[in-house]
């Protein structure tokens, strides 16, 4: 698929231009609020015991690490993570992995559970999550507030968006990515004028408006919103006094079009690939596919670029080890090819191909693991065959078990996604 050309209002992102314009975004007082309270029902059973942003991803990471890395890499060092459902795992990860900034300089990544200062219920929607945290905004008094989602995978320099926002004296700027028109009904879609100003915004439209000059593409909202804080506060208060669904995409943004300066910022990808990369990890299939995006020789999403490091909690496991190199035919050979293998893994005479292994996974002799995601502490017994599966933490698959080979047998025992991926829940016991 040909990549659409940059939008006409796209700013000059050459290095020289960035150097001269970067001062604005660094002077402005910006805080980020990462929405991390969603239940993530469509990721079940991966979300049975943890919030969606805490779901392990790419071997070492949790999904929220991408948004948090983008913040830190963009110089945004005052970050609140708004937690809610099953927040214990996420809370632990943030405290253990992200207490890396200087408190003395007023920098932090911090979780806030619901305070019930201005609400008696848990968050009713994304806008209500901000409404119930107006107290935090009052304590911080930032000029701009960046609202992010804790379950998106992408690399973005938010400074470019901040400069864009300040240059246009916008009230709200929404980061957008061109998507094929056929896929657009899944997203919030913006219709823009020549200068990037949004003149219509619809959530999940049946008939999405195309990009002018690009009839096969639409501008999809990435769920990345940059607000003037005063505008944000007024909007979420007005919304709280209605019976709306209290959602930014459905309620707040459509209401602001026309009365406020709302702009679309053309996402400038730091992933350095021909195709811009942004994924909403909303479903188990999307989760599996996004993990598979990491393992190719030339992966569509690159974790290895030192210019845009993705950070996570420190790992204390020893180096990964692959053992047995007995000659064919019949010899045991421990290999992992086209795969991500985390520290602590031991591939002991088994074969791993196109897979993602979290720390401390063990694959025993003559086992075959293909196109699968194995989470921390899981062990695969001798002679197992595992294909197109997601196996959550600390599952001990006994010798000789096959997963992803016999769909009928799998359906009796496991959850099967619409794309046929087999999902084995955390700590599942085999009788």
């Amino acid at each position, binding site marked *: 698929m040909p990549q659409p050309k940059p939008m006409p209002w796209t700013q000059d992102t050459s290095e020289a231009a960035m150097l001269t314009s970067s001062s604005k975004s660094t002077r402005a007082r910006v805080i980020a609020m990462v929405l991390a309270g969603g239940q993530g029902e469509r990721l079940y059973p991966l979300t049975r015991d943890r919030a969606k942003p805490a779901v392990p991803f790419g071997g070492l990471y949790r999904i929220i690490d991408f948004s948090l890395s983008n913040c830190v890499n963009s110089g945004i060092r005052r970050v609140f993570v708004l937690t809610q459902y099953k927040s214990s795992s996420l809370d632990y990860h943030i405290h253990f992995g992200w207490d890396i900034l200087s408190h003395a300089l007023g920098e932090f990544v911090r979780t806030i559970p619901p305070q019930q200062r201005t609400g008696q219920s848990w968050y009713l929607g994304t806008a209500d999550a901000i409404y119930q945290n107006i107290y935090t905004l009052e304590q911080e008094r930032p000029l701009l507030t960046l609202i992010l989602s804790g379950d998106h995978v992408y690399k973005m320099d938010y400074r470019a968006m901040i400069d864009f926002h300040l240059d246009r004296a916008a009230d709200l700027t929404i980061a957008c990515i061109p998507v094929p028109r056929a896929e657009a009904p899944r997203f919030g879609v913006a219709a823009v004028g020549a200068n990037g100003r949004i003149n219509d915004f619809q959530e999940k439209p049946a008939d999405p408006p195309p990009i002018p000059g690009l009839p096969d593409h639409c501008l999809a909202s990435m769920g990345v919103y940059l607000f003037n804080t005063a505008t944000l506060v*007024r909007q979420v208060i007005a919304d709280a006094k209605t*019976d709306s669904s209290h959602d930014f995409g459905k309620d707040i943004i459509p209401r602001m079009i026309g009365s406020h300066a709302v702009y679309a910022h053309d996402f400038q990808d730091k992933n350095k690939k021909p195709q811009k990369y942004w994924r909403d990890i909303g479903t188990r299939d999307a989760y599996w596919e996004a993990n598979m995006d990491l393992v190719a020789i030339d992966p569509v999403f690159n974790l290895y670029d030192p210019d845009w490091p993705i950070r996570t909690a420190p790992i204390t496991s020893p180096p990964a080890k692959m053992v047995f190199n007995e000659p064919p035919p019949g010899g045991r050979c421990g290999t992992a090819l086209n795969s991500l293998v985390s520290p602590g893994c031991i591939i002991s005479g088994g074969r791993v191909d196109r897979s993602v292994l979290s720390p401390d996974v063990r694959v025993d002799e003559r086992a075959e693991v293909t196109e699968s995601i194995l989470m921390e502490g899981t062990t695969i017994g001798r002679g197992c065959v595992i294909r197109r599966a997601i196996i959550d933490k600390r599952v001990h698959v006994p010798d000789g078990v096959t997963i992803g080979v016999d769909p009928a047998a799998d359906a009796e025992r496991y959850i099967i996604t619409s794309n046929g991926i087999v999902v084995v829940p955390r700590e599942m016991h085999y009788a």
Partner: protein
Amino acid sequence: MPTILIVDDDEHQQILFEEELKDEGYDVVVAGGAREALDMVANTPPDLVVLDVAMPGMDGIEALGQLLARNNRLPVILHTAYATYKDNFMTWSADAYVVKSSDLSELKSEIKRVLAKRSEEPPAQ
């Protein structure tokens, strides 16, 4: 006539506001503090609340959040001797902010405005 709940910890001011608003034709009830006001609103909801900010115990800013959490359509006017809270985001969910004065004409006109605005809105579902 609409019922107005005055929340103020100062007895002299309670009497003054009650008399003046009764003269305007409103039914007036009075609470001497925020917790009492929350109970009164739960039992017999008024049409509008005039809420002092600096009070012992729960202050008016916290009470405002609690009142709206119980009824998101309840009209509330903050009525305080201090202008400084006006900049505080937590006060922005009030329908009006009136600085106390011996001349109550601003309070009266804001009450009229807020009640009129509320009667134009569609009822809660």
